[in-house]
């Protein structure tokens, strides 16, 4: 008999973004509060990577993307992707 699908262990946005390299994992342990911009920036990077509209918000397309089955290897391995670049 088919098992029901489990609730994803990355059911929170922060957890998902940390798991796949969009937010630094140290925040999970240190409990650092991140500012809104950091989260929006991480969402924007995820949306860019996932080829969905880049809004920086937790919209329907982003929720849909995060539900999709995927590989467990992080997409971004260095925080440089979220660093501001010098003009």
């Amino acid at each position, binding site marked *: 008999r*088919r*098992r*029901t*699908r*489990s609730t*994803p*262990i*990355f059911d929170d946005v922060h957890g998902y973004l940390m798991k*796949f390299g969009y937010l*630094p*994992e*140290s925040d*999970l*342990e*240190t409990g650092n509060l991140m500012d809104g911009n950091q989260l929006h920036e991480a969402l924007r990077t995820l949306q*860019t*990577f*996932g*080829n969905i509209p880049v809004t920086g918000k937790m919209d329907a397309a982003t929720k849909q*993307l995060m*539900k*999709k*089955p*995927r*590989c*467990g*290897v*992080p*997409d*971004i*391995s*260095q*925080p440089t992707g979220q660093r501001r670049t010098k003009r």
Partner: protein
Amino acid sequence: YNLQGQKWNHVNLTWSLRTRRLDKVDHGWVRSDLNRAFQVWSKHSKLTFREVNSESADILVFFEKGYHGDGYPFDGPGQVLAHAFFPGTGRGGDAHFDEEEEWLVADKTSKDGTSLFRVAVHEFGHSLGLSHSSVPNALMFPWYQDMQSDFELPNDDRIGIQVLYGVKDEKSWGNIPVYNPQTSIIPVLSTTVPTITAVTRSTAITSYTTPVTPSKPTTSRTMPPRRAEVAVVVDEKPDFCNTSFDAVSIIRKETFFFKGKYTWRLGPKGLYAGYPAQISRLWYNLPSNMTQVDAVYERQDGKIVFFIGRKYYVFDGNNPLPGYPKPLTALGLPDELDHVDAAIVWGHNSKTYIFSGTMYWRCDDETEQMELDYPRDMSIWRGAGYNIDAAFQWHDGATYFFKNRDFWKFNDLRMRVEQEEPRSIGEFWFNCTATGGSGRNGDR
């Protein structure tokens, strides 16, 4: 495409399916699908793949569920289906599939199932050195997509693999071998398989000049030896070049290494003369039958804490404080915990952490109690693995994890080890040579 930074330094790779028990699917069809997935990559590059029945194959394939010892637990059906390790020694190149998925083999289709072939092609891309690509129709796009088994490798992935391993220079591509359930034999492509006489697990570190991203941690394939097996004969002075350590800690600004009944003291000018010394000569009234300490750390108030079995001792300098030892449970640790592996004050937030087995706790120094929400899984200390021997923060501010005769330097901000390959404790901390070491019981 996105290159991870490491590649195999040989193109004739071997692979092996190491899972014996696969309840839901035919083992032969699984091997057939994995073989076909490898051929997708060999079709467009100089790579060849040969299946062997050996632990020493370059790429080992496992079906695992939940926590399976690599710090990347699976989550049951759905969401994360598999992961793989980038090229390297030990676990490098290996691919793990979530056993709890509804795997479809042999081109079967189902609304709820997932094609093993499709996922395997993607994971083997990691095994060969490719990271995730943001090109939506690429194989290395992180989110799996449906595709036909006779698909052509997308350009993005084809260029990526060819940059790493070169273009196939002959038209030797034949038909993809197909599993025959009557014989349980997967035919081999004779035109592309080279003669290999010895199967060895290869070192595969070849640096690459394109954007380098750190690989996932690679840890020893072997299960950690039980603590009793690691212990040396305690009545003999251990050779610091050739041993693991029970505990390491900075005490009064100097580094102490503990093994059995002995400790070495490392200062700014190197190893102190007269060491190793018996621990009981420096810290008084420890139990006379003590064979080893489990963990030692200097508290932020300057007190020195020793963990030995189910008890902990607090010292003010050389002398124990009255009222100790106390059981681990006095700290709020669980009754079933029979030892701790390591204790540190983490430089990143100046909080005290206790490690044991696969879990860790954070201690509130004011109340001397473990904080709520703990224990947590040690996998967040990515690359340090489980069942560590020791951990400490050194003078450079970095955290170091010790296990067996190796250690990792940990990047606190990125929460992962700086290098997936561990370094030798003897060589780095004691200037031992790779071959020498025995008989040098701290006499230098």
